[in-house]
């Protein structure tokens, strides 16, 4: 079946512009996660959705970052007034449900964001 998809695969934007990154999770997966990975670094958790609600937004680095999920499916991560330090690969993952055995997250290919 289809995996997690993300679009665009690459995005180059000018400092100060807003960007939207999209994630299509695996059908039926109720949990959705956003992570950020800077060059040569591990993954940094941003936000987690269970259905359409986000019980954990603790990883969002500033109020310029926001995310929403509609219909328990597609999610959009929005970065306003982008800064150069926002340049990174943004990864989305989904899972059937959080916690317990079988707690496997399936990752998309990521969106590489470059802020010039």
């Amino acid at each position, binding site marked *: 079946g289809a995996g*997690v998809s993300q679009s665009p695969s690459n995005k180059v934007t000018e400092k100060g512009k807003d960007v939207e990154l999209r994630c299509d999770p695996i059908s039926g997966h109720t949990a959705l996660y956003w992570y950020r990975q800077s060059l040569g670094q*591990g*993954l940094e958790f941003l936000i987690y959705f*269970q259905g359409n609600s986000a*019980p954990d937004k603790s990883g969002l680095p500033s109020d310029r970052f926001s995310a929403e999920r509609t219909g328990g499916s597609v999610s959009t991560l929005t970065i306003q007034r982008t800064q150069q330090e926002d340049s990174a690969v943004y990864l989305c993952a989904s899972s059937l449900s959080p916690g317990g*055995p079988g*707690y496997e997250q399936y*990752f998309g*290919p990521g969106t590489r964001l470059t802020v010039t």
Partner: protein
Amino acid sequence: LAKTTQPISMDSYEGQEVNITCSHNNIATNDYITWYQQFPSQGPRFIIQGYKTKVTNEVASLFIPADRKSSTLSLPRVSLSDTAVYYCLVGFGGSQGNLIFGKGTKLSVKP
């Protein structure tokens, strides 16, 4: 959530067995131990998960001692295609769900 410590890098040769050990001294009673693999320009991929003792699948084995303060991922007879970054994570998720990824172990397999 428990933090993990693992070597930054490891080198190996084709055909050898590779063991990557991860320390997680403050693992909680209900935490599971999970390993992910990441190739360049790709998202991480689940390899194996366990709670205690030993777990084996078609890709790897995971050894967990009784105190669960560490775990060892064992890759039998590695090939060049096993060159990747390997992440050890502990957690249960529950209402939170997120995984804490460290910098992982970069495994380089040489011919």
